[in-house]
């Protein structure tokens, strides 16, 4: 771990401004991802800005009937919130499917969105990794790639975005709110937050240096049946091989986003028109252009089967 200086910001604007003063700065929220990466010398910030005291831990109703979730709301609190459980069940379920109770008590909304990949080559500083060390090559391509992405990948990187929460937020059409060092705010649709790797897998989001996430808003509830189906190699405390976040309406229409298959939560709105035609047709559209490795090609079939079972579950619930 590289030695670093530390400050505690008081307001969101302060935090963003502080980040601008220190080009090598990072925000620290729950620290459950950042600290691990610092210990392994994968993240090497020279300055940490603690954002825990910014007053961003509130969950409030919006005028539009939606919900505004502060960036510092803990995953555990968000999952347990009565409005989330009632109106955004997919989000609550995705959250509790992630990590462990202890981690969810620390992990924050913004931190979760910005957590980094779990690619084992990214984690081993002896290995090549374009995301960690641009230009060094990709260890996973041609190596161990079973957990990796099958779509949205590039020749430079095939890592997944590991979040469960973000997948549910994607299916809910969430908007990420930020503040910049110059004090200006912006709203980023979650679909646009994360980047595909292309030739620059080290650039993971559209956030500018010093840009602080202040919250996430959810539009007003859309009803329907909310399902989060996470498939992994053990029953708990593991990242998704594949996860499916779905909201299915009584008429069979709906929305589906995937986790564990792409460098970002994967959703193709145009494909959703095919949902009433069943899992096979829909999945074929959703995953068109997939580029799996021999080790992770099973994910394509797994997606189709989970989607089929999710649709069956949704139907079952309507009778």
């Amino acid at each position, binding site marked *: 771990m590289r030695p670093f200086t530390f400050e505690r910001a008081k307001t969101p604007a302060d935090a963003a401004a502080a980040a601008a003063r220190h080009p090598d700065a990072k925000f620290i929220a729950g620290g459950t991802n950042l600290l691990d990466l610092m210990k392994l010398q994968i993240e090497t910030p020279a300055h940490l800005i603690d954002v825990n005291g910014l007053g961003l831990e509130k969950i409030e109703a919006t005028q539009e009937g939606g919900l505004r979730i502060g960036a510092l709301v803990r995953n555990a609190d968000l999952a347990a919130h009565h409005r989330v459980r009632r109106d955004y069940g997919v989000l609550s379920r995705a959250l509790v499917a992630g990590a462990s109770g202890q981690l969810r008590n620390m992990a924050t909304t913004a931190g979760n969105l910005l957590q980094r990949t779990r690619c*084992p080559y990214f984690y081993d500083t002896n290995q090549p990794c374009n995301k960690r060390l641009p230009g060094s090559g990709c260890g996973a391509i041609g190596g161990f790639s079973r957990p990796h992405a099958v779509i949205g990948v590039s020749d430079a990187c095939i890592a997944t975005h590991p979040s469960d929460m973000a997948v549910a937020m994607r299916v809910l059409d969430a908007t990420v709110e930020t503040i910049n060092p110059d004090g200006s705010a912006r709203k980023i649709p979650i679909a646009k937050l994360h980047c595909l790797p292309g030739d620059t897998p080290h650039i993971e989001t559209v956030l500018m240096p010093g840009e602080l996430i202040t919250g996430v808003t959810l539009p007003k509830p859309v009803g329907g049946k909310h399902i989060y189906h996470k498939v992994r190699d053990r029953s708990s405390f593991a990242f998704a091989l594949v996860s499916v976040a779905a909201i299915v309406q009584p008429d069979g229409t709906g929305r589906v986003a995937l986790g564990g298959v792409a460098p970002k939560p994967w959703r193709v709105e145009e494909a959703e028109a095919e949902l009433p035609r069943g*899992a096979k047709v829909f999945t074929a559209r959703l995953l068109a252009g997939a580029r799996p490795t021999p080790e992770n090609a*099973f994910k394509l079939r797994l997606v189709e089967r989970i989607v089929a079972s999710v649709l069956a579950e949704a139907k079952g619930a309507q009778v």
Partner: protein
Amino acid sequence: MKFDTPAKTNPIDQLKVVGKPVDRIDGPLKTTGTAKYAYEHHDVAPDTAYGYVIGSAIAKGRITSINLNEAKAAPGVLAIVTADNAGKLGKGELNTAKLLGGPEIQHYHQAIGVVVAETFEQARAAAQLVQVKYERAKGSFDLAAAKDSGIKPKPGFGGPPDTSVGNFAGAFASAPVKFEATYTTPDQSHCMMEPHASIAVWKGDKLTVWTSNQMIAWGVRDMAKTLGIPKENVRFISPYIGGGFGGKLFLRADVLLAALGARAAKRPVKVALQRALMMNNTTHRAATIQRIRLGATKEGKLTAIAHESWSGDLPDGGPETAVSQTRQLYAGANRMTAMRLAVLDLTEANAMRAPGEASGMMALEIAMDEMAEKLGLDPIEFRILNDTQVVPDNPAKPPSSDPQSKAPEEKHNPHPPFSQRQLTECFRTGAKRFGWNKRNPTPGKTRDGHWLIGIGVAAAFRNNLVTKSAARVRLDNRGIVTVETDMTDIGTGSYTIIAQTAAEMMGVPLDKVVVRLGDSSFPVSCGSGGQWGGNNSTAGVYAACMKLREAIAQKAGFNASDATFTDGQVRSGNRTITLAEAAGDKGLVAEDFIEYGDLDKQFQQSTFGAHFVEVGVNAATGETRLRRMLAVCAAGRILNPKMARSQVIGAMTMGAGAALMEGLVVDKRHGFFVNHDLATYEVPVHADIPHLEAIFLDETDPTSSPMKAKGVAELGICGVAAAVANAIYNATGIRVRDYPITLDKLLDKLPEMV
């Protein structure tokens, strides 16, 4: 005490304390966090500095340069030790690769240095500043590719590499029903909770190490050898061990580097291996490729059995002895086994819980299930039909399994009887208890909602090993009995069963017994390994207590043979004195050891069991979830049913991991285990494990020791994974022959989704 005739009735048979499910005597220390583990002896050396180990970034080749300048200048750094300045180092008898590598590199994450600093964080930060340049050499990392270059390994713990009885080839060719399949098991990591950790303190040329080690005497010997100093100058202290599973049988880099770091920094130094080094720096269970061929009559009598296994290790390493149980488990007149060992430049392969049998049973017990199906027989009846009371294939062994025994060599018996063998009873008891008769023998036919339900069974089998073990027993003027032995408690319950043994022998309640373990200044015990710890260490305590009883009787003027020890008193005729009185102010001390004659050659001492498993396989996703598990064990006298149950259900959990998720992934290009942390090397979590039941059949084995006990802790893992695999087959009709059985191996063959 020499144990060379079967045990008769002895004080242990009173079973006033032994055999009772008493709680761990060290339980309160552990549950309150006050039992001190290796890294936590803050009191012994308040000025301890911290060492951080640097692991090699390549698997094979040479270091061409190391630049320490930046690291040396980093804050807090006290010393950096590499092969360049460590002085001449030897290698422990039980180490395959060097514990401090360089310039030659033998495997990935081989330690190439240690940075010592005032704080852990400083040591780690400085270690990350060390710049190493390497020259890579081509290595061999792929077992399947290297398999055919495998050679016959030297005979070792698992017996000779090849055995043959009758004429396998002929019998197999002419067998009316034949079966053949190849199975694979992956490399596995022990992944105990507590990493390897040590604090080293030098006083002059004397070294004391607080460490976490299963085999104190081996550790001391190999440490002395590695440093080139007399054994007498090395002391190991290892009172509590946060799991070992075989990963802490040997001297490892933490001990050596703490000692070298302490010498260089002229300060006590502590070193814990970081988690990543657990997989690639220490030992692991080797992957195997196993080929099994079975021939039988139409009625299901096995006539031909062949089991071949291939594994890999560094040059001069040893094989995973996966065929050993096949020499003993089922009858059959014509048979062969063979082990071949290829060179692999991965970290060294060595013992992990039930080495040999754990992997071998994973294959053999699927094969038995497959053959039963082919024969149209119930898998339990098929196994019972081929049960045997004598060893079918007993190759001539090296003179004695006790390395210290000087017993003259006996004539070799190719088919010795088992001292006890209740395999059939295990199956019958388990079948009844588990509701085996409710199992639908046709696979894929039982459903519970979207779960495909299946039940599977497998035999459990593991040999019992006897080996010399010593103890010292003291009695003081308060009537307190103190036992001292270098035996270790790796979570198994050694403290407790040793206390029970001493209490029984001396006729005192448990709270009058103090047990002190894991210190090389105590008499040398068997140590913890090979499921031999329980029986041998308590037998050593028995021997020492016998001597103490004699000393007490003599002091009291009693005839030792008719003195009785109860209620803290010793009686003879109508005379009684308390133990406290007998001890007097000076106290009494006795030391003895148990050593063995050739009863383990006259009789094959083994432990048996049957595993029953019910699984649900998600019809959509192929995820397997365990629903119920039962183990029935016949393993000699159970010294403490609570401890034994803990061991068996722990082993069942580990077996479940082996079946469903555990496996080190080899990067065959760069030569290392990629999943080197606990996030990516998955072991079961609570949610994976259903209700577990473990039953012990009544058994005492008078040939094993005066305790009449055998081992249970490894028996519990042997066969579990195959029972799970067989249950998955019963649930789905899909046979997976390469472990772990992850969902991707089932997905394509599951029923179509609508």
